[in-house]
């Protein structure tokens, strides 16, 4: 692990500006690090040539004084975001050798700002999962290991490749997507910062759709400052996404401050649920003290529909997924399985059977069922109403406070192969799902390590569009926690 790969994005930008090193040197160090970390399986596709070409362009821009906000910064992109001409898989076999002829809005923003893209990062198939084990390209292995153990751990999911690559110092930052917690949970399990902005802040144009009313795109990096900077570049109005918000992008970086004077931070009593690891609870309590020290007032609040929120999420996300995934028909792009003498319908049946993994298949079938007449009113419509109640819970809570502090996940990283049933796995997202249903901005910040030396993350949730307060409290938490644990290199 060389010094260059260990720097934050902010430090890289100062180093590049001061000519301490060139973008070529910086990106080459990361290309080498990516190559040296293949055993983590965090990349599905590496793009070193394009990354180095972008580095050379960045060096020229620094010399000309025309460098963008991210000139020469080596980043990775979750492989459910289209980058023009690079294979796009969503970690599913059904996309075959698909190479998108267009660029997603968010990656275009990064490229326009001069970023160097090292490649496409592994994920759970179609971003459904909490452990990155459902990828058709194999699981991602976390760079972290418990003290004195050689057991392979999960990085979390679904943005597991993004989290592992940032934690292993092989990319400076990454893009993830978050439908029910897929940025925040892997960030927590991998000891990095992950930010899910408000719904509508970042255009979904070019993102492989899972559940459109819940899909968010956001940054993952090693510091709060870096996440603020990445979001500033990615966010903005895009006419190609009908839910994109036509609002100016705030200057989150310039307004970052760890002073929480006058802020009220709510602790949801329902989140003190059974089954949370006691070390997570201890870190949570300690963080409340830290935020109080930073000037905040801590108040107890209630989110009564928390339990029902998980069920509502499962129904709504599966229904939307079944609809979104119907586009994979084997006709226009991706995999086609054509049985001999088969007709058009036979192609659909065979392609979709071969192309979807077991988790995706189950979710599509469950989603299809809740949209049939048998279950539509009792499950789908009811879930959409419960979603309203979940949103009202937050609205009411925010009358008494400005932010919420919660754990991000109920546990630290667990061993590969240890995930229980799918619904049990959803408990891993119990603290992140309600926020997704409400479209609120939320960040996960590493707060402590447990007795085994594994990272624990805490979540800060803000009012709609109040990313600034979320980032500021995240910065206060980051400074108080002083989290500087590093995964010891074994790969």
């Amino acid at each position, binding site marked *: 692990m060389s010094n260059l790969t260990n720097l934050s994005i902010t430090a890289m930008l100062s180093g590049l500006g001061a000519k301490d090193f060139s973008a070529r040197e910086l990106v080459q160090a990361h290309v080498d690090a990516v190559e040296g970390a293949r055993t983590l399986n965090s990349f599905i596709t590496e793009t070193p040539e394009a990354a180095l070409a972008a580095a050379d362009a960045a060096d020229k821009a620094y010399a000309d004084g025309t460098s963008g906000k991210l000139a020469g910064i080596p980043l990775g992109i979750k492989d459910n975001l289209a980058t023009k001409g690079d294979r796009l898989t969503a970690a599913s076999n059904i996309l*075959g*050798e*698909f*190479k998108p*002829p267009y660029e997603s809005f968010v990656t275009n923003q990064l490229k326009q700002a001069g970023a160097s893209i090292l490649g496409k990062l592994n994920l759970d198939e179609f971003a459904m999962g909490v452990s990155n084990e459902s990828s058709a390209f194999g699981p991602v292995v976390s760079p972290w290991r418990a003290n004195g153990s050689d057991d392979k751990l999960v990085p979390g999911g679904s943005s597991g490749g993004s989290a592992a690559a940032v934690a292993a110092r092989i990319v400076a930052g990454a893009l993830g997507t978050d439908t029910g917690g897929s940025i925040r949970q892997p960030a927590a399990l991998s000891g990095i910062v992950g930010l899910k902005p408000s*719904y*509508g802040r970042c255009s979904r144009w070019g993102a492989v759709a899972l559940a459109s*009313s819940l899909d968010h795109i956001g940054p993952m990096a090693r510091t709060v400052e870096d996440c603020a900077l990445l979001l500033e570049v990615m966010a903005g109005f895009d*006419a190609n996404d*009908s839910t994109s*918000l036509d609002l100016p992008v705030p200057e989150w970086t310039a307004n970052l401050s760890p002073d929480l004077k006058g802020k009220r931070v709510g602790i949801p009593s329902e989140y003190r649920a059974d089954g949370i690891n006691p070390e997570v609870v201890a870190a949570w309590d300690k963080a409340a003290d830290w935020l109080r020290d930073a000037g905040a007032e801590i108040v107890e609040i209630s989110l009564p*529909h928390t339990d*029902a929120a998980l*069920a509502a999420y*499962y*129904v709504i996300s599966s229904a939307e997924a*079944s609809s979104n995934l*119907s586009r994979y*028909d*084997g*006709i*226009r*792009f*991706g995999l*086609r399985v054509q049985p001999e003498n*088969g*007709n*058009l*319908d*036979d*192609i*659909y*049946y*065979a392609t*979709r*059977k071969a192309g979807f993994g077991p988790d995706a298949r*189950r979710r*599509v*079938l*469950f989603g*299809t*069922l809740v949209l*049939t007449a*048998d279950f539509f009113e*009792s*499950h789908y*419509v*009811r*879930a*959409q*109403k*419960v*979603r*309203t*109640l979940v*949103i009202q819970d937050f609205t009411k809570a925010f009358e008494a406070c400005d932010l919420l502090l919660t754990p991000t996940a109920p546990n630290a990283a667990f061993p590969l192969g240890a995930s229980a*049933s799918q*619904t049990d796995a959803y408990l891993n997202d119990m603290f992140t799902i309600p926020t997704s*249903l409400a*479209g609120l901005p939320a960040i996960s910040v590493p707060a402590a390590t447990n007795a085994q030396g594994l990272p624990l993350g805490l979540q800060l949730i803000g009012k709609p569009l109040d990313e600034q307060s979320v980032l500021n409290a995240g910065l206060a938490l980051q400074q108080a926690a002083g989290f500087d644990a590093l995964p010891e290199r074994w790969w």
Partner: protein
Amino acid sequence: MAVDEKMVARAAKLARIGLTSDEQAALVPELNNIFDWVSKLQDVDVEGVEQTISVVQSAPAWRDDNVTADNLQDVLMQNAPASAHGFFAVPKVVE
């Protein structure tokens, strides 16, 4: 209401996923587990509550009906599993 093999077969047909009858049978308990797990939705009083379709409140914007892309036929055909004469190719659908 519990899911049975017939309902799974119907969902698999609607979703165009080819499953053998053994695979369908294996999915019955898996899907019923999920239905059990989401049954807590039935305990919530939703009387008079509106549905949430999207957290974005504003109505989707209208845009002019203009062609903005170039002719992408060749580019798009490069991703087609089978094509002929610049069209997507499929087995004969009309007798």
